[in-house]
């Protein structure tokens, strides 16, 4: 059954072998710096909405507007451990709006009304200004427009709010539309940290 290999067969094996070795070489070269799978992340220190010192500049809403998903995969996240729980939160209230009868700014900053304000601790109903308030962002409503992040930045707030890519929502486009649009190169694919 086994016929003697013809010259053509031998040549074929040689060409295939060379091709495989070439591919192996490229693969090995590329793999030298390869790491675990990355995920898209926002560098808080570079994003204009959270970068310290970038005060009085326009809010960047590219995270909300350019993601391929109908509702962006980016969310604002309030780090409660850093939050001052202020009575008048500059991320919750539009602090330039007129003061209403309660003595609070009459408008909210979030265009999607995604922030909840709850009095916490020992609540004194007669003196609301003397209470602490917890600000929680509703993940289902927020689209990562960045307004509250800018509003919470030092010196107005304590910079407790930042933007984060939600790993469970992001479909990890190879060419992330936000990374392309991000004016600050703050949007990067990095090995995930667990």
């Amino acid at each position, binding site marked *: 059954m086994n016929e003697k290999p013809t010259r053509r067969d031998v040549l074929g094996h040689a060409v295939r072998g060379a091709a495989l070795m070439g591919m192996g070489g490229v693969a090995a070269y*590329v*793999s030298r710096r390869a790491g675990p799978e990355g995920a898209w992340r926002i560098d808080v220190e570079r994003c204009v909405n959270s970068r310290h010192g970038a005060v*009085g500049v326009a809010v960047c809403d590219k995270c909300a507007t350019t993601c391929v998903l109908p509702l962006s995969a980016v969310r604002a996240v309030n780090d409660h451990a850093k939050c001052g*729980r202020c009575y008048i939160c500059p991320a919750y209230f539009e602090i330039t709006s007129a003061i209403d009868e309660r003595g609070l700014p009459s408008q909210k900053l979030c265009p999607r009304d995604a922030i909840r304000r709850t009095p916490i601790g020992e609540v004194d109903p007669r003196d609301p200004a003397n209470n602490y308030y917890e600000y929680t962002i509703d993940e289902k409503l927020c689209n990562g427009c960045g307004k509250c992040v800018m509003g919470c930045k030092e010196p107005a707030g304590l910079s407790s709010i930042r933007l984060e890519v*939600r790993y469970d929502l992001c479909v990890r486009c*190879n060419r992330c539309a936000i990374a392309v649009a991000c004016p600050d190169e703050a949007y990067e694919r990095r090995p995930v940290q667990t």
Partner: protein
Amino acid sequence: MTRGLSMPGGRSLLVVLLACAAPALGQYDYHRPVEAAPSEEDIGGGYVTPAVQRPPPRAQWREAADVAVLAAALSLGAWLVLKRRSRNGLVALTIGCLAYFGFYRQGCVCPIGAIQNVTVALVDPHYAVSYFVVAIFFLPLLFAVLFGRAFCGGVCPLGAIQELVVLRPLQVPRRVDKGLGWLRWVYLALAIWFAALPAVSRDFVICRFDPFVGFFRFAGPLHMHLIGGGLLVLGLFVGRPYCRYVCPYGALLSLLSRISWRAVSVTPDKELDCGLCAEGCPYGAIEGLRAVRSSCVSCARCFDYCPRHRVHSPERSAASKVS
């Protein structure tokens, strides 16, 4: 902002900024009441600081599982086409892979797009490519050297979606077909060029103009849906237009499949040269009554046109029902 004020002509800039940054400007009148976050004792009432909700990233083992699924699907595809000669089996594999790589994994990252990641990894020492992406890029190429375009036959979700819409394929004149086929190489060159640019101006054009990833996600920019929809309509009459005239990875695969160790042959054993198969391939891959390795996408459609296959096929009865 302050820089803008001190600059000549900074006035108009100020007006623009005032218009769009009014809330931020208002912060100057506002004074933060606290200097640090209050402690749980300060807050009182048994308050506990809530944990920041943080969904975990996709586990690494699932990435590895994707590579394993890819390897298994490629092996199965090669076996179904070359050994079992089963179009039915291959259609099942195609649907399975479309469901898994297309709709479940939502398209990314695919070997076609990985051309760009690998290019960047070659030219940019700061780029961290993932070893899963490297594996996803090279596995189908390896299979092409051994078994032909097994990836195109039943695994690639982009090929699969086109494979399933082929309705009434026309035979494209051979010279037109060959000429348009060069577009793949042009696209490959462009994709490598744009990926190899320095990081600031780099672009992944293959992904930017990916026709079908928008369908897989039920989302995406309009131009993607228009290109994809157009290709699918065209694909009713011209078999797999993206594969034959656009896909840059298909160009690489067709080059490597020329030297493949095993390849599709229309007949299972003896060639009758009866000519019954000549029109059987929707992709113009049968020339001189033989399947041409470089353009054959291993779809197994031609087998049913061969009288020898009908006699020898293990699924003879089923085969006669398939058009």
